[in-house]
């Protein structure tokens, strides 16, 4: 069982291991936590995140369901009504779509509908994003749909420690959480002590991953490593970039983001999801509303193209990479250009 592969003390651990450990610990701590989904039992999930849970806690706590996403989420609603804390696995991002009606019309609204009498402590785990060479429907980024649905929390960890801490927080939350797991970070490693997981300050708090002064990169999930790499590469260009990891899209931590942008005066929002109508619009608009007079340049966005996710052989052209981030930073109207492009000034 891979869970036990994480030994004592700080060791290299993958995000997948941390997620598995979070599920295990949550189930051990609270008998009302139930895992359900397609292939989560015997197989341990196609990404093996639920590996060993059925063995340790039994089929009733970690259940292979029939193959029907609306049914999975819909029954989870009923289980939550009866006081359980269902953790639902959607096998891939795009296969959550059949469950949208249950998600929008019930999971996100049941608390509001019943004036708080029926909360929905449901966690919906969604392996999301691309970069894994997956064929069609296996690489979607659908966070924009979730963000646009009041009543849902939307979380996307980017580090091993956050994967553990945020998943524990999501399961403990009395509100429904869409928990986006960046597929291509599943096997990324960090030094991590499984027995003393770092404290993560709950859902809704962004974090500055790299302090900097020239401009702020605002990002989350699978794009964090890209931004960190870009920030390192930018040093050679003379830019000292700050990187903010949102960690949760809802609640959105305006304070941390705006504090950073007010300091740097420039910002680029980076994500993998399509640009048009994607999460970056909200983020950029919000930063602009709050920080307008601190901005030296418009908040730019680096995102996936406005196209259906491409086939594996072309995905590298679609995914925002270090170069595109640096190109955007270069377009942030640094001193020399400023006067050129805006001759009349303001």
């Amino acid at each position: 069982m891979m869970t036990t592969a994480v030994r004592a003390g700080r060791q290299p651990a993958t995000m997948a291991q941390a997620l598995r450990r979070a599920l295990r610990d949550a189930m051990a701590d609270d008998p009302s936590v139930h895992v359900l989904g397609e292939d989560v039992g015997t197989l341990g999930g196609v990404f093996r995140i639920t590996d060993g849970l059925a063995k340790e806690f039994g089929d009733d706590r970690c259940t292979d369901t029939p193959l029907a996403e609306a049914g999975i989420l819909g029954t989870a609603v009923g289980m939550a009504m009866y006081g359980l804390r269902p953790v639902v696995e959607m096998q891939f991002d795009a296969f959550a779509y059949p469950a949208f009606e249950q998600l929008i019309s019930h999971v996100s609204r049941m608390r509001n509908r019943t004036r708080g009498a029926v909360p929905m402590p449901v966690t919906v785990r969604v392996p999301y994003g691309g970069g894994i060479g997956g064929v069609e429907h296996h690489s979607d980024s659908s966070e924009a749909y979730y963000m646009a649905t009041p009543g849902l929390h939307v979380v996307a960890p980017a580090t091993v420690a956050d994967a553990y801490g945020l998943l524990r927080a999501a399961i403990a939350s009395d509100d429904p959480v869409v928990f986006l797991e960046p597929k291509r970070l599943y096997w990324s490693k960090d030094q991590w002590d499984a027995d003393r997981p770092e404290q993560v300050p709950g859902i809704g708090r962004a974090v500055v991953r790299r302090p900097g002064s020239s401009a702020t990169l605002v990002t989350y999930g699978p794009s964090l490593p890209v931004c960190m790499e870009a920030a390192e590469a930018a040093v050679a260009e003379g830019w000292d970039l700050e990187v903010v990891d949102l960690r949760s899209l809802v609640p959105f931590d305006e304070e941390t983001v705006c504090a950073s942008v007010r300091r740097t005066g420039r910002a680029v929002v980076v994500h993998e999801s399509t640009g048009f109508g994607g999460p970056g619009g909200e983020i950029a608009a919000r930063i602009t509303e709050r920080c307008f007079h601190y901005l030296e340049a418009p908040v730019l966005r680096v995102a996936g193209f406005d196209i259906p996710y491409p086939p594996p052989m072309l995905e590298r052209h679609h995914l925002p990479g270090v170069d595109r981030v640096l190109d955007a930073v270069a377009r942030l109207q640094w001193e020399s250009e400023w006067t050129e492009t805006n001759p009349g000034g303001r």
Partner: protein
Amino acid sequence: MTVLEQPGSYRPTPPPAWRPRTDPAPLLPDAEPYRLLGTEAAAGLDPGLLRRLYGHLVRGRRYNGQATALTRQGRLAVYPASTGQEACEVAAALALEEQDWLFPSYRDTLAAVVRGLDPVRALTLLRGDWHSGYDPHEHRIAPLCTPLATQLPHAVGLAHAARLKGDDVVALAMVGDGGTSEGDFHEALNFAAVWQAPVVFLVVNNGFAISVPLAKQTAAPSFAHKAVGYGMPGRLVDGNDAAAVHQVLSEAVRHARAGGGPALVEAVTYRIDAHTNADDATRYRTDAEVETWRAHDPIDLLEGELTRRGLIDDDGIRAEREAAERLAADLRERMHQDPVLDPMELFDHVYAERTAQLRDQAEMLRAELAAAGEPGAEQEGAR
């Protein structure tokens, strides 16, 4: 396409994974809807039960009429009456024990009221006051559900959870003939059967989904015939025969409670009123059709049985009608009081805690209300 059973010299082994998983025969419904009233079997029925059913039917009919009247007076945004279908509503509520759960559709306020919910609170949604006016846990009644068939998986999940906890709880979920066409109907029945969850699905087949008649909704011999495809028993019952619906549902509930798994019951009835007060039923059906169903009215059927067996007399009937009038008067009166709504509550239940964004928005609304001298503004400070 018949199976030819003529073993040859090297007849292949049968596919090893193949075994008929369940015997289909007992899962299939009878060809005709089950009836009790007017049959000799009715003689064995508990008179007390029949009287209770009757009282609820009479009050239920009056309730439907009064609620419809309230829409005309602008006191209800909309009302989908269950007039003509009261036997299903009443029987569904009475078939359950105290600890069981009812999952009503938007048409089933009456079932909720019969189960004990205050009639005014049952109308909260339809009044436009709040989305649901009651705490579902109080009477174990899920919120009246508008998106069709979506309440069915909830019933399955709840019943399954209760069973896992070792609790003695059955869930009864109601859905219309139209609702059976939704994917959620299918997924719910399948989960219930695979999990052997203690759920009873009641299809209230009233012949129409708004304007769409049965023939455009299904080509099946009956909805009850769907059950075999999930591996659960399917039963067909005359939905205007309160005693029959009650008996079939009670048996299904008992069966589920005893660990026998889910069942699907189709009650054949008719919607006497339009879909809602906003609907014009003359566009899609004839008065003559409505009249043939009036001749098969659930109240008349039961009243006939009670009268014939001397279980009720004119005084008794009058007493029930008077009780119904009192209920209607009470409803009328209480519905004429304007509900008091606090606009600031809009921000209170989106999440367990308001987000920073919701705090800002609440502050904006509070300021607007204060500027306009409207209520809501003053309470907000205390939050």
